[in-house]
């Protein structure tokens, strides 16, 4: 069921520029494994208010990435309805962008060429390079525009992938464990980076992660999913102000609570 979502004063919502409202209504989905359906999502309902940062937390392979693919419009759900700003999702759209666990930059394009991909795909030719360079500056990759992806470190490649999404000014950013493959130090730096970008651009952010701490440091709400088929187990608001510290006693308490829900010894 939809958990209590905090209402924001209407004046704060800027539907033209800011984030999009996401509604997921009783969505179920199954994979077809050699003719046998394998249910991955079971009646998942979720509402994300415009401009909010919500984390979807669950064990690996529980179906949370599938939910993101459905929201991105890469696949239609078997049952239920997904809508963005009241309009049903029927296919991919540059206003809803997905950042994958792998940066999946095109190796044959320079970093600038990769970042400009969305502008090029939509035929936005004018000032393409300038906008790509601005996005690269935003993620701290200025000076790397002419470089090929294989010359970047893991963290830099993921920054470039973020720039590739942000240059399109998405209203909903879907983050599919974007920091999952980074080393611990790079991870911390990138968490701060994502937070900074979100605070600056005010898109709605939906982050999939299996890292409880990451969810608590970044998100305003943590939605805990059960094992496959994924259903919502808990919806926990995180009310601490940013920037947050990992050793904040309130966050430590919530971490213990969430680990308890996930059936892990705290």
């Amino acid at each position, binding site marked *: 069921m939809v958990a209590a979502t905090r209402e924001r004063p209407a004046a704060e919502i800027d539907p033209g520029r800011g984030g999009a409202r996401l509604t997921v209504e009783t969505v179920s989905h199954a994979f077809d494994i050699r003719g046998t359906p394998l249910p991955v999502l079971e009646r998942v309902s979720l509402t994300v208010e415009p401009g909010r940062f919500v984390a979807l937390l669950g064990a690996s392979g529980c179906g949370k990435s599938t939910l993101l693919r459905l929201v991105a419009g890469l696949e239609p759900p078997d049952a239920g309805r997904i809508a963005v700003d009241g309009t049903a999702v029927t296919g*991919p759209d540059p206003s809803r962008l997905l950042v*994958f666990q792998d940066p999946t930059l*095109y190796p044959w*394009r320079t970093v600038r060429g990769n970042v400009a991909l*969305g502008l090029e*795909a939509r035929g936005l030719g004018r000032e393409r390079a300038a906008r790509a360079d601005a996005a690269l500056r935003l993620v701290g990759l200025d000076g790397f525009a002419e470089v090929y992806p294989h*010359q970047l470190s893991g963290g830099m490649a993921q920054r470039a992938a973020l720039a*590739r999404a942000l240059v399109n000014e998405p209203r909903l950013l879907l983050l599919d464990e974007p920091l999952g493959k980074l080393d611990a130090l790079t991870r911390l730096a990138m968490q701060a980076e994502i937070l900074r970008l979100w605070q600056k651009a005010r898109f709605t952010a939906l982050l999939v992660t299996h890292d409880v701490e990451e969810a608590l440091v970044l998100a305003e709400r943590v939605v805990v999913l059960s094992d496959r088929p994924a259903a919502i187990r808990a919806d926990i608001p995180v009310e601490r102000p940013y920037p947050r510290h990992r050793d904040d006693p309130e966050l430590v308490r919530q971490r213990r609570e969430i680990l308890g829900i996930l059936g892990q010894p705290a």
Partner: protein
Amino acid sequence: MTSLTSFVGTIPQGTSHRFLHLPLRALAVGAAWLALAGATYALPEEGDFPYTATLAGAALFLGAATPLAAAFANRLGRFGASLAHWTPWLAVLALAFLAWELVTAKFALLPMPFFPPPQAILEVFLEDWPKLGGSILNSLKLLAGGYLIGAALGFAAGVAIGWSKTVGYWAHPILRFVGPLPATAWLPLAFFVFPSSWSASTFLVALATGFPVTVLTWSGVAGVNKAYFDVARTLGASPAFLVLRVAIPAALPHVFVGLFMGLGGSFAVLVVAEMLGVKSGLGWYLQWAQGWAAYANMYAALIVMALMCSGLITLLFRLRDRVLSWQKGLVQW
């Protein structure tokens, strides 16, 4: 990048190396060519070869020029660097010519009409060059036409098969059944189906090129990382964009493997087609030389053919290096 750094890295080492050994190397290469000149000119011959003095003169020139150029290699820029690199080969080449000269013209250790001496081949190049040059030109025309048609059609077919399930369904069995057939097996059929032997040969060369290009383009397109398409689709890419800007660039490394295989196959078909049907070209020249027992002409044609084929392969390598320059540092070439 790798080759560049290793190249740059060897310069200081090479310089000190050159200071120590250059005189010795330069003298050795000069001595080898002078030995060839002396033996060619002074030793009595088993037979009558009008170009013996010319060969001796050429060897004498190289015997003087190579050590001189090697001595000043560091002032000759790129030519000097390449000369320094090839100096040992130049010396060995002179010794090989010397051995060849001795076992043929001088001591007749090899049966004569089948193994002509170097000066006999030099004679072919100097006297028969109009016919030889015309043959190269005709071969190149035929090869270029067939290769370009085959490569273009193979590429288009490969993209279509890799992209569309329907096209793949119909094309796959045909390719599996017909593809492994060597292109030369079509030769008898092609020569009576096509109006001219030239068009038949073009068809055969195109076929030999097209099959590997089709198969490798197809596997390249079919093997493109699916996540690349997800990325482009979420960014608002049209199907045309997915094919032209995602599938094809991602498949290009495979396409080039197909182009290399196709080029190798097209040489084989070209020579056979020219030997059996077309009345021009290097294959025809080879056949003609053999018919007249003009073995020196045959060797000359073989040398020219080797130069042509390796030149075309080099050209294709250059093209790949340009088109796939992004792979530098990613793949060991």
